[in-house]
């Protein structure tokens, strides 16, 4: 029987692969039209390579990070690869996750992406979905909500974050060459981050 963590990553993979053309189209408008193609290639490979029966969440996340790192390429590969590797460190040895673990994992992911991408919030990147998502998750956690409710709060805030990326100029990545012409377009990386968070939420909700 497949482990829970494998099932969850499979759910993320399905959603990303399903949205391959959508993500690529967003990237065509302000980048180089390969975000969906690259992400789908990485997750397709991950589905084939991840151990299905390993229950150590950290170990599976680490393997996923390695696969994305070596198969996605471009900027998304290192960023998502780093996100998974940092999450792996925070979840090392665990076979179940608490609400607090979720906080720690998100915090580690944000630290990793900031450092790798030398980016901050407000630069029209994936951080504009993940950081508000993290903050909403923490607020819900502090209010004593359960995991599914925390993930709901995270997704709602991340979706607002994606909308927000339409209103700002890109100052990182290839879209930055467009300057003001990047306004009006939602960031493909923030969008794939939201899709990832929603996939996790939906998977937890279906448990």
């Amino acid at each position, binding site marked *: 029987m497949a482990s829970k963590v494998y099932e969850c990553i499979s759910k993320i993979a399905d959603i990303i692969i399903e949205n391959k053309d959508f993500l690529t189209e967003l990237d065509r408008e302000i980048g*180089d*039209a390969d975000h969906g193609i690259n992400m789908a290639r990485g997750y397709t490979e991950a589905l084939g390579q991840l151990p299905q029966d390993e229950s150590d969440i950290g170990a599976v996340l680490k393997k996923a990070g390695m696969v994305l790192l070596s198969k996605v*390429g471009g900027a998304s590969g290192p960023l998502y690869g780093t996100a998974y590797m940092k999450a792996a460190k925070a979840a090392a040895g665990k076979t179940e996750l608490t609400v607090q673990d979720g906080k720690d994992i998100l915090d580690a992911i944000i630290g990793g992406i900031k450092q790798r991408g030398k980016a901050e919030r407000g630069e029209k990147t994936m951080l504009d979905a993940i950081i508000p998502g993290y903050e909403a998750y923490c607020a819900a956690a502090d209010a004593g909500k359960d995991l599914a409710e925390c993930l709901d709060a995270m997704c709602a805030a991340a979706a607002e974050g994606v909308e927000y990326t339409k209103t700002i100029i890109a100052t990182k990545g290839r879209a930055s060459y467009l300057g003001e012409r990047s306004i009006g377009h939602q960031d493909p990386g923030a969008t794939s981050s939201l899709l990832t968070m929603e996939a996790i939420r939906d998977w937890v909700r279906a448990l």
Partner: protein
Amino acid sequence: MKKLINGVDNVVDEMLNGMTAAFPEYIERVPGTDVVARTGAKKTDKVVLISGGGSGHEPAHGGYVGKGMLDAAVAGAVFTSPTPDQVYEAIKATECGKGALLIIKNYTGDVMNFEMAADMAADEDITVDKVVVADDVAVENSTWTTGRRGIAGTVFVHKIAGACAETGADLPEVKRVAEKVIANVRSMGMAVAPCTVPAVGKPGFDLAEDEVEIGIGIHGEPGTHREKISPVNDIVDHLVGKILDEGIYAEGDEVAVMVNGMGGTPLSELFIANLRVKEILDGKGIKIAKTVVGNYMTSLDMEGFSVTLLKLDDELKGYLNAPADTPAYKEV
């Protein structure tokens, strides 16, 4: 799309195999990777120089692997940065105890993938450092963007840092020399017609029959503006003018010039462009110590060219004129 290929998925693999088949005395493919290394790598006691990036810029970078220049080059998919594991393989295949210098063109993906490879190597106690080339003056407001792109000036970094490494200099010294080149090299390009990435199958952008894009990047990134085509002298005046506006080249200085073809422009036109570059520099009292004209940093089948100026001092000039023997760049 008309392309002389066997399938879009085989382009990089077959290109690398064909390249090493053409120059077996210089380069070989590291088995199981997209890395091209000097034939018989790991036998020299020197700092190793590694570069690479997306494919589609041939002869960059595999063509610059050889004595006096690079030790290895890593090829990504067309116009897509290679992944960290591939860069790491290049380091492992060539590094021999004196450390490795990564020469990276300034693109978000390239910088991140090469940096991660450096982290992986550091975990294995291999000393790795990096330099980032950002010579494209067409990118304005670089504070508000990812910064200037690395384009044809990168070849001069390979040449000069390579010559320095060949003397047995240590890693900090080779890095210092590479950074001196980066500080003194500027480029700007233009396109008459776009390029077509094989996997995409259609041109990356559209240009009207009588239109050119000034300041184009080597992946077809937007330039500063579009205009009606004019005589090449006027175009060269504009490109060289933007480079001279940087204020680093003055009367009495010595420079190296590169007139680089984007892949689809005949040499005859590059020579015509070069003549104008010489006229401008002569007029400013800037002495040309070295000129190279040809396809050095291409953009698949794009039609167009770029001009690069490198300000020289005695040190850089010495390394520029030092011997190099690679498939695509020779100095005897």
